[in-house]
């Protein structure tokens, strides 16, 4: 009954450091997404994937990279952390595009 699992839940990074946010789902969904949520701004799409090996940029992709080697996993990579990347990051999955999205619990990232 896990659904979408994100790790870590919290992280503090120094400017210029890199890290990978992990996301895995056990619902066999083809579609997976990464969003960032800033206060009063709603959810902004960073990257999405429609299946293993297929990814595409969303609305705010700069400073991030993704890969999708398996159906289950969709990690998000930050190469050179900047203060503007301080946010809460959510991974989500869905059976198909524009259908119900299932979200993880989020990763709160602070870049100092």
């Amino acid at each position: 009954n896990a659904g979408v699992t994100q790790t870590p839940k919290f992280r503090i990074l120094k400017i210029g450091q890199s890290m990978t946010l992990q996301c895995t789902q056990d619902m066999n969904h083809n579609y997976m997404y990464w969003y960032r949520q800033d206060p009063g701004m709603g959810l902004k799409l960073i990257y999405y994937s429609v299946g293993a090996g297929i990814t595409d940029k969303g609305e705010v992709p700069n400073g991030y990279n993704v890969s999708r080697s398996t159906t289950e996993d969709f990690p998000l990579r930050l190469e050179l952390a900047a203060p503007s990347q301080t946010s809460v990051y959510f991974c989500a999955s869905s059976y198909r595009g524009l259908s119900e999205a299932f979200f993880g619990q989020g990763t709160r990232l602070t870049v100092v």
Partner: protein
Amino acid sequence: TQLLEQSPQFLSIQEGENLTVYCNSSSVFSSLQWYRQEPGEGPVLLVTVVTGGEVKKLKRLTFQFGDARKDSSLHITAAQPGDTGLYLCAGEGRRGNYGQNFVFGPGTRLSVLP
């Protein structure tokens, strides 16, 4: 890119009161979704409305999709502290290389005081 606006941005009410929150756009949507996000959690889908003029009820929550499919409302009757959270609406937005993705409104943050 289609945009969604939500109002009010914040709402604080007493337990037992009724409230309505709104999701508006200048664009037409084929469907709209409503999510509720509790503190420290990800959003959870409440309902999807797909037909202009449609009304859906979920216990004390009533969702309506505008006739022109440009707006939606969520009405809560006799609010309870458990209704506290961020209410987000979402509709089809930007088209990527592999189809459209959702665009989310900024949300209405509801606080129901006991």
